[in-house]
């Protein structure tokens, strides 16, 4: 057997992709559904799902089965192609960003020089999925949700990108692996604290989570863009939301929490632990705060986060140049 190294490389790449997908899909997205229900239950002093499997872990499988057997309803006014594409697009774009995440010094799918931009671009395409879903169903509440999502994404991607830029300036590179390596002495959540705060807030808006879940505000616009989806298409939106959360937590771990670098025994386990902690924080916040008003959301984005991020970027760049 004399396999050329290129072929081996390809095989190894496919294996890596499969490992990442399985770990993220089964380990994170599925268990996030369970974790959300469990955390919300404990915060509200309930018990949460505990009938199916140990501590209700298999509940997710039952939920998926239930969704798969539900009737698929497509509105007559719907643009059938868009209605079909939107749920798959949101999930695809979420897992696209996983390609550039550095899980380990040796284990990552690719390490491109524009990793940060790639992540932001994938997240931006996720916003398109929501807008398409809002438009393609031909119904008023989803359309409202879609437009809200568009406005929110524009408002919050700017401070998020500015916060990422200041981190990139600190590290001197846009590659996520380089950024993680630059945090070997001190994590950027300490040296770049304003950017850390800005990213944390923008992360909630970017993943449409409470307190910024304007596109799917149940009380106002009846779950927004998801209103006219049913069966497994709705399931893809559900999974896409959690996949977005997982990606956001991975990015935050890489940018601000030192990625795979730990106080001792650095490795992928530190990456997963930190990502899980960030995810828990997202759940915790979701079940603590109520939804903000729409003008408050916009005011926070444009009047506070963007100025803070710009000033932080300027100060960081100045210090980097002049010191």
């Amino acid at each position, binding site marked *: 057997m004399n396999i050329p190294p290129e072929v081996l490389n390809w095989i190894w790449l496919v294996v890596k992709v499969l490992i990442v997908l399985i770990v993220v899909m089964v380990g994170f997205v599925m268990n996030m559904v369970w974790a959300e229900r469990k955390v919300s239950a404990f915060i509200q002093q309930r018990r949460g799902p505990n009938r199916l499997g140990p*501590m209700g872990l298999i509940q997710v499988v039952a939920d998926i089965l239930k969704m798969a057997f539900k009737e698929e309803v497509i509105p007559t006014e719907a643009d059938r192609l868009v209605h079909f594409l939107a749920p798959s697009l949101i999930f695809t774009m979420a897992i696209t960003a996983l390609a550039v995440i550095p899980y380990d010094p040796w284990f990552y799918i690719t390490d491109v020089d524009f990793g940060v931009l790639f992540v932001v671009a994938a997240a931006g395409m996720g916003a398109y999925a929501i807008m398409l879903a809002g438009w393609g169903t031909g119904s008023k509440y989803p359309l409202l949700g879609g437009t809200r999502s568009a406005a929110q994404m524009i408002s919050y991607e700017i401070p998020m990108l500015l916060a990422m830029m200041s981190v990139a300036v600190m590290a001197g590179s846009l590659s996520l692996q380089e950024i993680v390596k630059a945090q070997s002495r001190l994590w950027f959540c300490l040296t770049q604290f304003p950017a850390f705060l800005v990213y944390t807030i923008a992360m909630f808006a970017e993943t449409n989570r409470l307190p910024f879940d304007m596109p799917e505000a149940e009380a106002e616009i009846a779950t927004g863009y998801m209103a006219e989806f049913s069966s497994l298409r709705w399931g893809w939106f559900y999974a896409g939301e959690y996949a977005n959360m997982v990606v956001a937590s991975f990015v935050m771990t890489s940018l601000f929490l030192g990625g795979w670098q730990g106080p001792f025994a650095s490795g992928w386990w530190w990456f997963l632990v930190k990502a899980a902690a960030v995810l828990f924080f997202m759940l915790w916040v979701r079940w603590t705060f109520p939804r903000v008003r729409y003008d408050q959301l916009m005011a926070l984005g444009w009047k506070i986060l963007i100025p803070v991020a710009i000033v932080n970027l300027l100060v960081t760049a100045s210090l980097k140049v002049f010191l």
Partner: protein
Amino acid sequence: MIVIPLIKGLWNTLRRLVFGPTFTVQYPNRKHWFLFKKEERKEIPERARWRIALQRHEDGRERCVACMLCSAACPSEAIYIEGAVNDLEKPISHGERFSRVWNWDMGRCIFCGFCAEACPEEAIVMTDDYELGRYTRDELLIYKADLLVPAGTPPRRVWLGFYRVLPPTVPVTKPLGVHVRHERYLKRENTTLYKPFYDRAKRVHQFLLEKGEDR
């Protein structure tokens, strides 16, 4: 500053998440297994009126003497009794008669507790066994064998708005005569029996004394 209330709110939810007690009672029992919390039953008050049971004396004989008072008191006619005379060699109850058939129709029963109230022998008590669901109507008819407590079961007191002391059980070798039983009944302390029953017992006692019949 808006940050301090936010942190307060986060601490509030975290406190409940970590230390907060959960109040939901995990009622249907399940086996203790890996990572399973042991599930519990609700505490039932002692005066609960659920499934009835037929008690026994300390010597293991049945308390029921087939007097039919419970059957008469039952507002929904849920109790059917057929009495029979005790075999003197091997008496089943302490009285002259014992209940050959004792059927309780759970589908008719309204769990009012009048039978336990009416019973002069404290034979019927209401227990805290509340798991009474059955799959068919036929299963709602409960027979004597399922109602009798096993021999040696400690006596359960009758609670129904007041507290009555169990009558003393006299070890006997033969069934007591009717009037002896009534005498014992009348001498009982702390009796708060339903007045008509008490009067009737008294009349029967007088009648038997006048007749001079004794065994």
